[in-house]
């Protein structure tokens, strides 16, 4: 397990306006928790994804990149998500070539009603990234590392710290109860 703190990790989540961003909104409405490393960036369509921009994000220290678009066949702009998938594959090749793990970027597809799945994918992406450890480019990018400060490592299953895989997920009803 890595010693990277969840508070330190930065995962950029490019999310399309019509589906993924709305699904993330719904995850909030349903009070489904997921790791706090996720930083959502809204784009009109994942088709807008630019390989160079993603590489810049890695270059400056992103630990992971999550690209979330509509379900395949359901793209609001017909085929943007298919183009995004292709570009994500391309980024995987390119970062592998410079020594980064290809698992640092993944493409996900969901509909706007799939709030739960958004949370699941956020968990999956965070765990996957955490298992790789901090991006080796972080130090190079000059980002101050405060590893170990403020919070447990992700692997130590701290109570209620967002470590909620699908199996331990709270149901909305249970959550409402808790609120009360």
């Amino acid at each position: 397990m890595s010693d990277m703190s969840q508070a330190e990790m930065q995962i950029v989540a490019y999310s399309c306006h019509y589906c993924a961003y709305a699904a993330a909104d719904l995850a909030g409405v349903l009070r489904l928790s997921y790791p706090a490393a996720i930083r959502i960036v809204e784009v009109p369509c994942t088709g807008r994804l630019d390989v160079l921009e993603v590489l810049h994000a890695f270059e400056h220290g992103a630990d992971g990149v999550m690209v979330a678009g509509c379900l395949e066949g359901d793209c609001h702009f017909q085929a943007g998500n298919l183009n995004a998938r292709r570009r994500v594959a391309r980024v995987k090749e390119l970062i592998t070539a410079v020594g980064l793990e290809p698992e640092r970027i993944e493409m996900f597809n969901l509909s706007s009603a799939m709030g739960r799945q958004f949370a699941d994918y956020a968990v999956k992406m965070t765990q996957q990234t955490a298992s790789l450890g901090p991006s080796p480019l972080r130090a190079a990018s000059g980002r101050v590392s405060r590893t170990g400060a403020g919070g447990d490592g992700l692997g130590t299953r701290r109570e209620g710290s967002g470590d909620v895989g699908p199996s331990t997920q709270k149901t909305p009803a249970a959550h409402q109860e808790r609120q009360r």
Partner: protein
Amino acid sequence: MISERLADPVTGAVLVLGGGIAGMQASLDLAEQGFRVYLVESKSAIGGHMAQLDKTFPTNDCAMCTISPKLVDTGRHHNISLMVDTEVLEVEGQAGDFTVTLRHKPRYIDPTKCVGCGDCAAVCPVSLPDHFNEGLAQRRAAYKLYPQAVPNAYAIEKLGVAPCRNACPAGQRSQGYIALIGEGRYREAFRVIKEDNPFPSVCGRTCHHPCEGHCARALIDEPVSIMALKRFVVDFALAYGREKVESVARTRPEWIAVVGSGPAGLTAAHDLVKLGYGVTVFEALPVPGGMMRVGIPAHRLPKGVLQQDIDDILALGVVLKTNSPISDPRKLLEEGFNAVCLATGISARDHSLGLEGEEAEGVISAATFLRKINLGQPVAIGSRVAVVGGGITALDAAAVARRLGAEEVIVALDRPRGELPAYSWEMEALEAEGIRVVEHTTATRIVTGDGRVTGVEFARVGKGMLTDERGRRRPTVEPGTQSSLEVDTVIVTVGQQSDLCFLDAGYDELTSDPQTLSSQIPGLFVVGGRKTGASFIIEAIALGHRVAASIHRYLQGKPLEEPERLRPPAVKFSREELQQRVRDGGITLSPRAETAMLPTQERVTGFREVVLGLTDRQARAEAKRCLQCGLCSECLACVYACGVDAIDHEMVECLEQVHVGSVILAPGYQVFQAELSQEYGLGRYPNVVTSLQLERMLSASGPTGGQVLRPSDGCPPRRVAFLQCVGSRDQSHDYCSAVCCMYATKEAILVREHSPNTEVHILMMDVRAFSKGYQAYYDRAREKYGVRYTRSRISALKEDPENGNLILRYVRDSASTTSEQLSHTIPHQISIVEDSFDLVVLSVGMEISPQVRSMARDLGILLDDYGFCHTVAFDPVQTSRPGVFAIGPFREPKDIPESVIDASGAAGRVATLLAPARDTLTSAPTYPAERAVGHETPRLGVFVCHCGSNIAAYVDVEDVAAVASRLPDVVHAEHLLYACSQDSTALIQQRITEHDLNRVVVASCSPLTHGPLFQDCLQKAGLNPHLLAMANIRNHCSWVHSDDPDLATKKAKDLVRMAVARASALSPLFKLPAPVRRAALVIGGGAAGMNAALTLAEQGFPVHLVEREHQLGGNLRHVRYGLPRSGNSEAPDPQAYLAVLISTVTAQPEIEVHLATEVVRTRGFVGNFTSRLRGEAGAEREVTHGVTIVATGGEEYRGPDYGYGSHPRILSLQEFEACLAAEGTRASADSGTWIDLAGVRQVVMIQCVGPAEEYCSRICCALALKNALRMKQAHPATQIIVLHRDIRTYGFKESLYRQALREGLLFVRYDDASRPIVEAPTGDGGLRIRTRDPILGTPITLEPDLLVLAMPMVPARGNRALATTLKVPLDQNGWFLEAHVKLRPVDFANDGIFLAGAAHYPKLLDETIVQAQAAASRASVILAKDSMSIGGAIAQVNPDLCVGCLTCVRICPFGVPQIQTETAGVGGLMGAAYIEPTICQGCGTCIGECPAQAIELLHYRHEQLERQVLSLFEPCLTSR
């Protein structure tokens, strides 16, 4: 096209009833065309049934994804007035000028104030079935219909005032505190009791509780122990220490004197001091409390308990002066009190019964007796005591006498004990203490000796009452029943009365108004006065509230009379209703909780309290017995929780009238109420669910989070059966609901996708996969997903009690199950199958609810035989009332796209009526001129929202704002309680001006819901709306990281930093006007083309109608017979219609008809097309137009299948129809052979010919049956045999099938593996058709005189060429492909081009007409404007960087980028890409692909996105 008498002038507004997808589409179309729209919805949010769906067939698109942009557009449209919680009562007037009366139902939450935070629902104690989730989950009485609801506001579900509250004189919200007790929230319960009643401790013990007398629970078992529950709360509050009551600040200068410290006086003092007045209470006795103190013995109301209530009142700041009798209240006014309230209540003066011997020693009045005891004064009492007179005071006196040591105590009641306001157990307790209670007995004389009491003479009470000489009513005595009893003390109970005898002379005439309680003396108010008899404490409290309100009005200088106000209705249930709920399992009978009591031996030895109250467990169980009659309990928890003061429990319904030119009815359907049909077991067997319930389970945001679970045990089912045609095609619903086959297929696919191991069976009669893409979807369900379809009819459904499984018994039509079975040679039998399933899904059909039917009757709209809305032949959305239109399933069961088509079609019809009034009642938002900020350095304002506690409870918003204030370019940062509230948006505008801000960041919730609101705020402050960036720190942060506030705060800072970085790079976006060519090109002169052209021309838009043939009419020329709407109605005449249509089109001056003409070239874009038309002899001309409508139709297939063309007695459907029309004596179309129908003994019809094996041609079944019935009618002896796969007479076309079965047509099913074989000898020899008996499996040979082939409709020749010309897509079968199969059925993805009729897919005439009107309506959205706004967030090429590599041209899904040879690219070389701003969709797909980075997507420029992302990795600031 019925001719309407139109009002003149017409009103340019439309009322649309129903906020489902049809109502929304109609509203949007009309609002965009320049009409004001009132969209009326009876629920608390729009969205209708579609919002409940998970996916939609046949594309499995997410329903919510597709509907939510429509929801937002509808909710925010400037010209749509959204009226939720509203019903239409009446429509008066005529087409063009209607007056509609609306009823707005109270929502109890003001949607204009509500910010949708949900704090009210979080504290609401009332749990109700969630109807949106079809009862599969519970929700609170304060609720939002669904997460994405529009308006984004909560509502409270309240039936009215609960009977308990209604019965209480003081209006105590009993249901409220009971609900809170049920949740264990005792402090809040105490708080709500105190809202209405400052004497909770007293009323928890001594109230006469009329609430319990009216408790609905009494109708089925026993009333809820409401008083005991109140006491429980008080005891709890006392036991754990009451919260300290804070004194109320004086905010008003006036001072009020209250005379009397009883319940009325102290209540008045309490209310007045809370209003901010100064209050002094004068009490004659040394102690406060009045009769509560001196009239009630301590064993019933302990003095400390009473004192607690009084102390709470005094703690508010009330001044109490005891031993202060007042005899001249005028003096108080003179001394400076601004008002005086006399609340002296029951007089201390003793009254007498008028009995002989009443003056003797040893006789004492009960009131005096109790007062002395309660004041601690000595009272002598003997050992044998008689209490005479009756009443609750008598009981108290008797109990006290016993406690003082009397050995024998007898109470003589002049009435039966049941008439006393005491429980039977109270009476029993009294008797247990050794007190004798005799009923129907009255004292007639007090026996005395030496001036002392020695006994009492009693007699039995007779019937009736008599009035004595002093006017008192006395019971009559039954003669001869006298008996006497030796006693030494008699306690006399006399009716007590309030009076004003303590006042000085000069007040003899003093009276008060019974309503306002004001007296003749200004400023003097009198409670009680001289006339009122002894009242109950709770009534005195009510009077106290009333006099306080009256004094307040007096001091405010307002009229004393309370203004008339509508009050919410009281809820009343009948015994039958409640008994039904008991039978349905909604209510479980249970006995009332009984309070524990002090042991008898301990009672009589002192004054310890007898009743001990409920235990915690008892109280919570008792609270759960409450039936929640009012639904909302009015506990006011939401009022305390709401941070924006949006909740008003006093709202009442109100009426409103609106003036409109037309009305569109889209009230939608209800699913068949299957629980009313016992045989399906719905409601009885938990594992029987409706398809709509399954839909909610499948929905990712539904109650099970997308998992299909058995309701009985929550386990995933392994075998699921769908029962088709539940509430369709049966005796009570003799129509087909048209959607069930496909939604069952969809749900089956989804179940299999979710858990591939689940077996899914669909038990059906026919699969009606009749529309575009449906057959392929059905094939995929069977072949790819392994969904099993079984033709069957269910004969029984029962539950296996062991495991909750359901056992189905059905008759299987074995020949049609699988093809393997058919290839077998063994004859098959009709088999009866019994099979067990874990879950049974009822595919419920559509019906019109009784409410909608009655609404239709109120509006004077005819309904048809099925109870659906009757519409006019060949004018499909026109109801029986001119100017009123019906759309969606209200007129026939239908699916989403047909409903959307109806909606646009009706909008088109309305537009033709109201065109003269276009743009008269609409308006555009006006904003100040935008400041040019392009050259300025960024000056950012950051506004961080608390969202009440939604963000602030988990994120340190102050810290976030502090950090934000030190970010680059930020000149102002602050935090706001609710950023979206009206005062906050005004503040943001103010700050923009104050600080000269040129960019704004709002850190709050989602831009999807609130972006437009803050953009509007920027525009009002003179900033371009695109200079806003939002950080979603609620949905993406506080709500998901509530378990770790530190982390949430850190992330919120990151999100704000990103938004700030993005905002600094933002630049204004402008939309530019482009002129619109206000003319249309309609291609195709059939029914679709002509109707589209007319709908446009009648609004005054010029139309070029292009027809390839030499005459107008298209396929309609071949249609001789119309389809009857139902079995009983007349079939309309299509040829007469065609003649009228052609003459109308020809006469219409705005339509230019181009016959024998084709479109050979078109260029341009939406609003500005130029097309080249080629007429006869190659003559060409160019026309300009803003829109294009494709209505090129289809044609009947003419392939050689089944020997077509080889034999004169093989006809197509169209040929057969022509033959029928010519009475069978005319030649068939092509062969030239004469057919004499009179000599035809047998006709065989084969359905699904040629291409129809691949896709369903939709119309053939109905047309075949229509013609077969004609034949049967003309030649009854002819036998007609229909060879078919499925009979797809969807909707009301089912009546043809029913009639055909009645008329004796024979239906023989075949399937793909056993197609009929036709032997057609050359010449005119005998036809021979071989097929197989589907039931017996044996071969059949038929030798008919005539074979009619249901030749399907195929795409028109030339479609492909036209598609290329217009650059619009075709689907795989050659039909034109619409932009979105569900929600954009008449639009092409290419803007400005629309389609209608059989060019889209085979259609019946009515469907074609309405689709043509719909296409015209969509086109009018463009033509109604002088100019269109173009630009916005679209892609832009920088030609200086473009190398003209064609990458963008190839990747764009919309084919927008083009290489312009006249534009210079990189290095000045000619040929750079150009993206036409009017048609760019703004997805940005080209940006990511352009190798030269020559394209930018405005508002998502490289710089903007990169700064946003990279700001994450800058060293972060911390707060100082």
